[in-house]
């Protein structure tokens, strides 16, 4: 199952909270997370690793990051 979390413009802990909530719902598949600060990017990647999700790419465009995560 594929899903997208748009956490742009949200301050801590919202990006990680939304990402983890979505991970609970879809459990496996591909998850794209949109963030717009380096702090959020690091926090989301750290949280993803703790849940067994793998980083499948981070694209930067105009100060925003599109993080692709995969599991299963």
């Amino acid at each position: 199952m594929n899903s997208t979390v748009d956490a742009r413009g949200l301050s801590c802990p919202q990006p990680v909270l939304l990402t983890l909530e979505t991970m609970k719902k879809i459990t496996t598949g591909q998850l794209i997370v949109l963030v717009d600060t380096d702090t959020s990017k690091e926090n989301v990647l750290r949280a993803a690793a703790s849940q067994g999700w793998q980083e499948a790419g981070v694209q930067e465009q105009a100060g925003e990051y599109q993080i692709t995560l995969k599991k299963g």
Partner: protein
Amino acid sequence: MTAWKNFFATRAGIISVGAVIGILAPLLQKLGNPGNMGICVACFDRDIAGGVGLHRGAVVQYIRPEIIGFVLGALLAAYVFKEYRPRAGSAPIVRFILGFFAMIGALVFLGCPWRALFRLAGGDGNAIFGLLGLVAGVWIGTLFFKNGCNLGRNQTTYDSVGWLLPLVMLGFLILMFIFPQIPDKEQSGILFYSVKGPGSQHAPLFISLGIGLVMGVICQRSRFCTMGAIRDLLLFRQIHLLAGVMALLVAAFITNLVLSQFKPGFENQPVAHTMELWNFGGMVLAGLAFALAGGCPGRQLFMAGEGDGDAAVFVLGMIVGAAFAHNFLLASSPKGVGEYGIAATIIGLIVCLGIGFTMRSKN
């Protein structure tokens, strides 16, 4: 440069930053800063409010160069590492009010979370109640988060917007050069300088500024945050930030032992009182306000330095809150809580709970 960028995001990076802060702050105390107050963001914002005459608490007036360094160091790091992100517009009035009441809570306890740790590392047992209050306040915040509470999205804005708080800080520094401290004089031009009490105790200006700049750089890089440490543990069972906070505590404890600054006990601790309930209650209020606003007072300064206009509003709320705290007799002193400190803490808790209950997204 990439290696350094990555290093600070690692466990070793955050532990190193905590340890550096834990060594430098007691050193600032040795060089003149008040007892168990090598760094205290709340107290130092309060001293700045006094230094520019927003309140007339004669013993707490001094523009603290450490705070200026925090913001300018974070700005510098954000530019060097291409992380400057001008952004604003996430409920600014709410952030101002949160900053306001966070300061009132912190001044009922007498310290920000950083100082709570430094007080503990200096042997002040009263800090335990403050730290427990901080945990309780952040825990309440996590309950709100689990129920959909958030302050809304910010928007990317013009570069100049993110420069405003750093420029205000630069302005304070320039004022210190135009109106330098005159020994034994309470005023120099338009600025106030305490001649007794904690405001009169300070390390040399350039050392304070230099250490502030270093801390601003490393904290921007590592995202060091005391409130975040507790929040992430409670909410996500993550100990990344907590590792840095524990490193700070251990390093400060060892440094205090080396510098003979460790004096265990509850009575007669520097710039502290022994009213357990309000040491706890003040920090419940502060912790909740920090949690809702997404950062401890130090972190708010670093975020303001990297362009976050909402964090800048929180900082201004803290400075104004400090002025009210002293003008309205809310702030504590070594004698105990201020005349109206308890009432203000209760009002603050009601306001913060109101924010938590009402600012929830429907989905």
